[in-house]
């Protein structure tokens, strides 16, 4: 040890007041960030994100709505327990390392010291979240997703980080124990998942959960925020809730007598009260939500009617005899749609009643009883002269299921519009429909089934030629089974 005198004068009051307090705070933050336990959680968070969010999202075509919403619905399930756990571990740090006496004897208020530790955890959590989100958004953009990125889900995610960190940190400070971090991490994960089960209807207060990115029963729906804007109503309420929660939790840490001076504790009380008020307001706002026709939760007090206007777009079409045109966001589905529809469309092209074009329609969402949401085509199946058929894309990711659902929904309607009949179809109409669709819904061994098999065995061109000649009589219900080829 050296006895050399190094004079480091303590500054007088005036000098200290003029010094940039921000520099000292940033110095503390730098130290805390460098040694934050959250830094060690980043590889774990990235791995979990890859398994739980990234890979399932990539199973969908590059759609901004589905990918962006997964940054709330699944990514936050990954981040919540890790951030809460790390923050709780840091909240207990002073007691764990026997630093209490040393730290009490320092000039900086305890609250200010705690905020630096919390802020470091939050910064790393946000860096991790933005990194994961950046990869997901970057890949989505690189894959040529139509339109621009949806930022609101990411905003909710980012604002969740301070709230999760505050929750864990407050638990660590107020209940210091080696069990606090694991318990609070598991508890938050379970609480978030269980709270979703309480969502009933579109006016549920539980929608305030940051894991909710839209009507909970729908899940990641490809039709939401495609033809219409992504409504920021629920995200705004969630951001308010999370900001309020953060303020209330951090403010609570500043309330005890040893947290700081009277002025600082008064400030903490105001922050706590403001936080609680904001949180309560946000929950109340979520309770006034309603499912709008476009599949988003609208909150009347926060709703901007400008968001109800449809988005302009140029459809993407294929070159089948009856062109199929999809919304550019769904362009990834065009090959599957073409493969599913082309054989039948080729056969029906040019026939009376056949549409001249098939155009993707927006979905219409309706809140039903028992927490169910019905999704149907907005508007009639056909419109205009010459006729345009409005196609509602099925909500399926697997190609086989997607094609099967297209056949049931779209092709049935198109064939019915040509062959006629519908529910009261004649046996001949039923047989022709069955032969064109290649289905087997008729009773085996019945005359209609036999006629359908006979007709299906013909080459498509021969069937088309026969239809050109007889479709008018068939539509009028004048043909019998015996008259079929």
């Amino acid at each position, binding site marked *: *040890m*050296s*006895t*050399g*005198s*190094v*004079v*480091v*004068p*303590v*500054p007088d009051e005036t*000098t*200290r007041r003029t*010094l*940039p307090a921000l*520099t*000292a705070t940033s*110095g*503390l933050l730098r*130290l805390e960030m*460098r*040694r934050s336990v959250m830094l060690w959680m980043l590889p774990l968070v990235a791995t979990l994100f890859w398994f739980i969010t990234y890979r399932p999202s990539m199973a969908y075509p590059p759609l901004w709505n589905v990918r962006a919403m997964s940054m709330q619905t699944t990514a936050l399930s990954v981040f919540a327990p890790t951030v809460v756990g790390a923050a709780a571990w840091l909240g207990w*740090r*002073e007691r764990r*390392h*026997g*630093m*209490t*006496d*040393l*730290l*009490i*004897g*320092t*000039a*900086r208020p305890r609250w200010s*010291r705690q905020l630096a530790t919390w802020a470091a955890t939050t910064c790393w959590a946000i860096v991790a979240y933005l990194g994961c989100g950046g990869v997901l958004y970057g890949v989505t953009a690189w894959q040529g997703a139509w339109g621009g990125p949806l930022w609101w889900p990411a905003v909710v995610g980012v604002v969740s980080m301070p709230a999760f960190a505050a929750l864990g940190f407050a638990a660590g400070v107020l209940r210091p124990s080696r069990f606090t971090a694991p318990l609070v991490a598991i508890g938050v994960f379970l609480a978030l998942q269980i709270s979703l089960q309480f969502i009933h209807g579109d006016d549920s207060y539980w929608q305030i959960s940051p894991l909710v990115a839209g009507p909970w029963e729908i899940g990641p729906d490809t039709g939401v925020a495609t033809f219409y804007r992504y409504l920021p109503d629920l995200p705004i309420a969630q951001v308010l809730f999370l900001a309020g929660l953060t303020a209330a939790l951090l403010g609570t840490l500043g309330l005890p007598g040893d947290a*700081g*001076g*009277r002025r600082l504790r008064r400030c903490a009380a105001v922050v706590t009260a403001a936080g609680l008020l904001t949180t309560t307001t946000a929950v109340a706002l979520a309770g006034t939500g309603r499912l709008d026709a476009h599949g988003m939760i609208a909150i009347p007090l926060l709703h901007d009617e400008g968001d109800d206007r449809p988005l302009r777009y140029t459809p993407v079409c294929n070159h089948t005899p009856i062109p199929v045109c999809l919304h550019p966001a769904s362009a990834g589905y065009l090959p599957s749609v073409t493969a599913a529809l082309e054989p039948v469309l080729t056969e029906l092209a040019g026939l009376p009643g056949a549409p001249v074009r098939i155009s993707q329609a927006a979905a219409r969402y309706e809140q039903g009883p028992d927490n169910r949401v019905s999704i149907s085509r907005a508007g009639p199946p056909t419109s205009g002269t010459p006729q345009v058929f409005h196609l509602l894309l099925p909500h399926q990711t697997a190609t086989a299921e997607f094609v099967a659902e297209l056949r049931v929904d779209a092709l049935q309607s198109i064939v019915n519009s040509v062959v006629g009949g519908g529910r009261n179809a004649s046996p001949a109409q039923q047989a022709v429909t069955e032969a064109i669709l290649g289905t087997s819904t008729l009773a085996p061994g019945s005359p209609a089934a036999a006629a359908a098999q006979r007709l299906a065995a013909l080459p498509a061109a021969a069937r088309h030629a026969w239809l050109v000649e007889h479709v008018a009589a068939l539509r009028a219900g004048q043909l019998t089974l015996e008259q079929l080829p």
Partner: protein
Amino acid sequence: MNVEIEDLTRRFGRTEAVAGVTMRTGPGVFGLLGPNGAGKTSLLRMMATVISPTSGRIRLLGRDPGQYGQRREIRRRLGYVPQHLGYYPRFTVVEFVEYFALLKEMPPTRVHHAVAAAVERVGLGDKATAKLRTLSGGMLRRVGIAQAIVNDPELLLLDEPTAGLDPEQRVAFRALLRDLGQRATVMVSTHLVEDVGAACTEVALMDRGKIVFQGTPEELAARAEGTTAAGDAPLERGYSAVLAQART
């Protein structure tokens, strides 16, 4: 006077750890001696503004630690090494000392230089970037001293600071104490009387929460004259004699 204490008492439940202590001291190295459980640590913790007294009056550096604003002013000018030094194992030596420099609200522009100087003064310059978890007990003790002196305190409170230091470090540490004591009040709580003899200008002996002797080390040694008090050195014999007298 940097330390003015009058009839100071601190109780923990039914136990009276400090029982009516009165003391005044200015710059210099002040040794606080006493057997285990005498109340030295409790007295030091009150002076470090870690705990508040049950009764009595205390003024440090001319300020009242009972007032928040004045307590903060005291803490800016205070250095404290507790008996059981806690530390963050993942911090480096420099980071740990810098952390405390910032918590003591030192001007940010002076922190870098002050940290480097404090680390050098405790002889840890070559370990500046070592993580605390890799240091020996003696080195950690020196880190504790570095964080205490980083703000060049006017009041430095050291609770058993030489525990864990080897003889060479102890000699250097005493020299450091003498140097610091030229400008500040350095209060050293210890049970090692040789530390007191080598570094202190004044000494107090505590027993059962009370100060039973206050004077210079020479006066303490003189108390053994004419007695059969046990001890290998004059100070030790003086210590034993005062204690024996106090207990009868």
